[in-house]
């Protein structure tokens, strides 16, 4: 056992106290210990205010030759497929940003920066689990089985969008993938996730619900309601909160809220794919074995002194890692990036050619049985439309 690990744990203990969740074997503690086969796991407060942050990759801008992925029994093929998925997710976001900039999309909520968080948390889920995403997590549908084309159709709200262009541009949900479409509320869906998890537990199913949220969620009553309901009903739910870069003073430290509610929690570097995978797997198994809810606060470190933003880009950090350990070279990766970009360009072009849904469709799906008051104005609207 190394000195480094011991130091890390002592520091963490003294600064954080020992909550029930800690003694209970929280994901955070287990995550810290999971890396404990040697001096591997570092808890660092860097750029994240007080409180330790689980991180396995070297600090941004530094290199490692240690195959960290082997701690998680990941093979090179998986890493390659992950990188491709991350590229697609980022590429779709960049495409939407371009459409937004050019006026093609009149509203867009970007997702860049959360791809690794999504990959890790969704990677810990199974088919029967339910996902309740917030905005800014466009990669979740992709990771649950949607195609890039389906993602873009939903963003454009075109005739192929199953939601028929009714949502503001966002990822659409899919019943078969067990993914809900996000509403624009900040934390209402966290309560839904708790309720859904309770429902699955009542049905005797060993599935879990996962909900993502942003830092502002922690300031809403719904956030606390969700944690309260989940704890009291021992619901198998994982809340994943992404924290702003460097943790803005206005945003509360969400793990502190979780501790106050008596819920297991972990603070993790959300740009470190391996730390996120480790924490997500632990949280998922925590829920599946009946230990109840937990929360992961995924933080983003501050950029290093030179202000190089790319150094704290989660995809860039992953890219740097596979090059550093010699799994791929920059040329090979560039070729893959080129290939994905070309594919997405073609997909985007096709999606743009798809017309809007039929005007008539906007009146449907208010209720299963259409209320008569929807029918009457429709007749008026259509008459007016034909006059114009």
């Amino acid at each position, binding site marked *: 056992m190394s000195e480094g690990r011991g130091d890390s744990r002592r520091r963490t203990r003294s600064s954080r106290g020992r909550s029930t969740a800690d003694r209970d074997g929280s994901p955070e503690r287990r995550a810290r210990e999971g890396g404990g086969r040697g001096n591997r796991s570092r808890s660092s407060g860097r750029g994240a205010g007080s409180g330790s942050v689980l991180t396995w990759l070297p600090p941004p801008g530094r290199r490692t030759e240690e195959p960290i992925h082997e701690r998680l029994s990941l093979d090179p093929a998986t890493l390659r497929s992950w990188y491709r998925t991350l590229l697609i997710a980022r590429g779709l976001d960049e495409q939407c940003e371009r459409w937004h900039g050019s006026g093609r999309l009149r509203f867009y909520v970007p997702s860049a920066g959360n791809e690794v968080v999504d990959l890790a948390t969704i990677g810990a889920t199974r088919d029967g689990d339910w996902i309740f995403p917030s905005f800014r997590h466009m990669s979740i549908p992709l990771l649950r089985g949607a195609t890039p084309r389906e993602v873009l159709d939903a963003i454009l709200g075109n005739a192929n969008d*199953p*939601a028929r262009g009714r949502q503001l541009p966002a990822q659409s949900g899919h*019943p078969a993938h067990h993914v809900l479409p996000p509403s624009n*509320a900040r934390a*209402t869906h966290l309560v839904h996730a708790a309720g*859904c998890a309770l429902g699955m537990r*009542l049905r005797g199913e060993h599935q879990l619900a996962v909900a993502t949220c942003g830092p502002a969620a922690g300031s809403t009553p719904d956030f606390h309601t969700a944690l309260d309901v989940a704890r009291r009903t021992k619901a198998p739910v994982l809340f994943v909160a992404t924290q702003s870069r460097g943790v803005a003073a206005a945003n509360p430290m969400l793990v502190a809220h979780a501790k106050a509610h008596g819920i297991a929690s972990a603070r993790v570097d959300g740009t470190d794919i391996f730390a996120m995978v480790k924490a997500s797997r632990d949280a998922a198994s925590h829920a599946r074995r009946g230990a109840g809810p937990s929360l992961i606060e995924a933080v983003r470190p501050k950029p290093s002194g030179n202000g190089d933003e790319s150094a704290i880009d989660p995809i860039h950090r992953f890219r740097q890692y596979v090059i550093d350990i010699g799994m791929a070279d920059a040329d090979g990766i560039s070729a893959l990036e080129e290939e994905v970009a070309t594919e997405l360009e073609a997909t985007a072009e096709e999606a743009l050619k798809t017309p809007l849904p039929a005007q008539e469709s906007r009146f449907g799906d208010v*209720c299963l049985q259409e209320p*008569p008051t929807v029918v009457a104005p429709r007749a008026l609207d259509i008459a007016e439309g034909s006059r114009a």
Partner: protein
Amino acid sequence: MTTMTMIEAVRSALHDALASDERVLVFGEEVVDEGGVFGATRGLGEAFGAERVFDLPVGEAGIVGTAIGLAMAGMRPVPEITFGDDLFASFEQITNELAKLRYRSGGRFSSPVVLRASIGAGIHGGPNLSQSPEAYFTQTPGLQVVVPSTAADAYGLLIAAIRGEDPVLFLEPKSLYHPVRDAVSKEEIVSIGSARIAREGTDVSLVTWGAMVPLALEAAAAASEESGWSVEVIDLRTLAPLDTPTLLASVEKTGRAVILHEAPRTGGFGAEVAAQIAEQAIEFLEAPILRVTGADTPVPFAFEDDYRPDMGRLQAALRHVVEF
């Protein structure tokens, strides 16, 4: 056919729904031990166990949000919000989430939640335990808003609501929970969206719902006896979707309409009823459409009876339109 009070009919419907469909769950604030403040769920916890009937933390947003999540997991949640006034604590969950999920998902998701709440005056609960909040919710597409006025309708509509595929706000007038026993047929399912002609008449249509139905019937009987006027009483039962055909057919027949509700006047659902009549049947009218309503004030504790519409005000309105 048995006779029941409205609270017994609600309890009976919950019992029968729990017995016939294992997806049905009943929960809320202290619904197990006490059966809720009004006793609607009394005995259900013992009969069906803690996995079907349970308490949640006191917090209406949590109760409604949990219900939506339970519906995603395939359940049929029938949560209780003790006082309709507390629906406001879950307003966002109801209006932004519960009501809109079907629409914004293109019909691929729905939230079949039946949310029960007691409404209106009747217990001298003052400004925050006596409100009639229906109009806040009829403005939200995707919600069905039901207000029964008899035990038979409470039973039949609650069963229909639980069997349905869309969210229902089931508002029970607390002043009608106990006073009257009605015959209840368990075979009679009442369709949501259908108004009831509570008394037939030819001179004036008195349109009302919920707590005001008994007063309307009393006024109609008195008008017949004292003045010989034939007052048709329409109990809307469901406010959303509104049964406009029944409403318009009545007004076309009588040529006069008085609307009666307990909620405040301005922006009350009566305004919508009046607008429907004005837009679609104005050529049949022989008198202005009048509203008899609660005052545009909160419900005052010491003056609750004065706040509510009474026989004198209702009779004056009927006289005005008949003699116009």
